[in-house]
């Protein structure tokens, strides 16, 4: 086995090996280029974020426009403050609503943005004013039971939605 043949085969091996890694990165995984694109941050606070995970997508009209960057608890208001990293290419109005949604019945939890009509846009670091928390199944069930119970002899006043 002479030197030239060995060099050739090793070269081929290393090339297809690195090619395999690149293939896995691009075609099998999704090399999210959002980390390298210019981006800005928005904040939103929720009563309950439900099953929202870090790096969950932020979607508007079903299109991914950002990712959840971090979550913390505000010690004064006891609300969850979520930081969103948004793609620079998409601007949202100041009266945008942020909702915590589930894709499908048991799918992944994500944040959906519904833009409003305000001509002024949210800038880096600003807070989305209107938010809708996650639907927690237990609360739904207890609400249902409460409704059922109170729709007995006395008329119910109904729970107030927030």
């Amino acid at each position, binding site marked *: 086995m002479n030197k030239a043949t060995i060099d050739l085969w090793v070269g081929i091996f290393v090339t297809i090996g690195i090619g395999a890694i690149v293939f896995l990165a691009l075609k*099998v995984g999704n090399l999210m280029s959002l980390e390298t694109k210019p981006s800005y941050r928005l904040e939103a606070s929720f009563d309950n974020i439900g099953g*929202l*995970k870090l790096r969950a997508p932020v979607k508007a009209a079903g299109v991914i426009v950002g990712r959840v960057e971090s979550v913390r608890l505000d010690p004064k208001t006891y609300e969850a403050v979520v930081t969103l990293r948004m793609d620079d290419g998409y601007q949202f109005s100041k009266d945008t609503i942020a909702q915590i949604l589930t894709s499908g019945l048991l799918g992944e939890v994500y944040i959906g943005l519904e833009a409003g009509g305000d001509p002024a846009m949210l800038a880096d670091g600003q807070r989305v004013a209107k938010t809708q928390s996650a639907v927690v199944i237990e609360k739904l069930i207890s609400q249902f039971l409460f409704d059922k119970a109170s729709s007995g002899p006395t008329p119910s006043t109904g729970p107030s939605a927030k």
Partner: protein
Amino acid sequence: MPADAIARGFRRVGNGTMRAIARAGFATRFFLAVLYHSPAAFHRLQLTVREIYFAGVLSLVVIMVSGLFVGMVLGLQGYDALNKYGAGDSLGIFVGLSLVRELGPVVAGLLFASRAGSAVTAEIGLMKTTEQLSAMEMMAVDPLARIVAPRFWGGVISMPLLAALFSVMGVFGAYLVGVRLIGVDSGTFWGNMRAGIEFWPDVTNGIIKSTVFGIAVSLIAVFEGYDANPTAEGVSAATTRTVVGGSLAILALDFVLTVFMFRGLGTV
């Protein structure tokens, strides 16, 4: 006398432990010495290139064929299980995640330990038996720099590449079975897979895992060869230890790494 037997038992355990610890210490010094001599392995790049050929290129067939078959089986079994929950469309992401995160690094690592690891151990052990290592020492050439370090680095470099190739062949095999044979929609297959596998952490963790496995297996292989008893039985025992020890190390490290890497996912 039972007391005698118990005492003897304790002494044996104690002796065995002492010897194991001493061997572990020797192995650590050996590893540091190999690292110390590694620059020489890269100065004479030809030596390392040659070892990449023997460890990596000669394992290509085994790795790629195995990858193909594992992928095909994953496709079959995976579809069978997923279909029960109406989740047949998730075949792509199931296969992709299994391979990239776990099966690629681990199975390729096990195959590598048996094929390349045992070959390296046998080669170094045989050189020790026929006094070639001694002869080299007496010619003022350090065998650690000339024989051991290139083989170590050849293994370390080959492992991640082989694991990636294994995963790719596996995905292809699952594609053959899932899309061509069973009839899962091609777009769904690839689309779900792409949506579900992140470059970071899935692919990169897979690469990190396979690199760690490569270091462990290569180190065990060169150490066992260097430390082998210079007889026929000694080399045979050393080769066995490489395959068994390397495989166990891979599985144990896999557990440890998985806990560290994938524990963080899904939590806030």
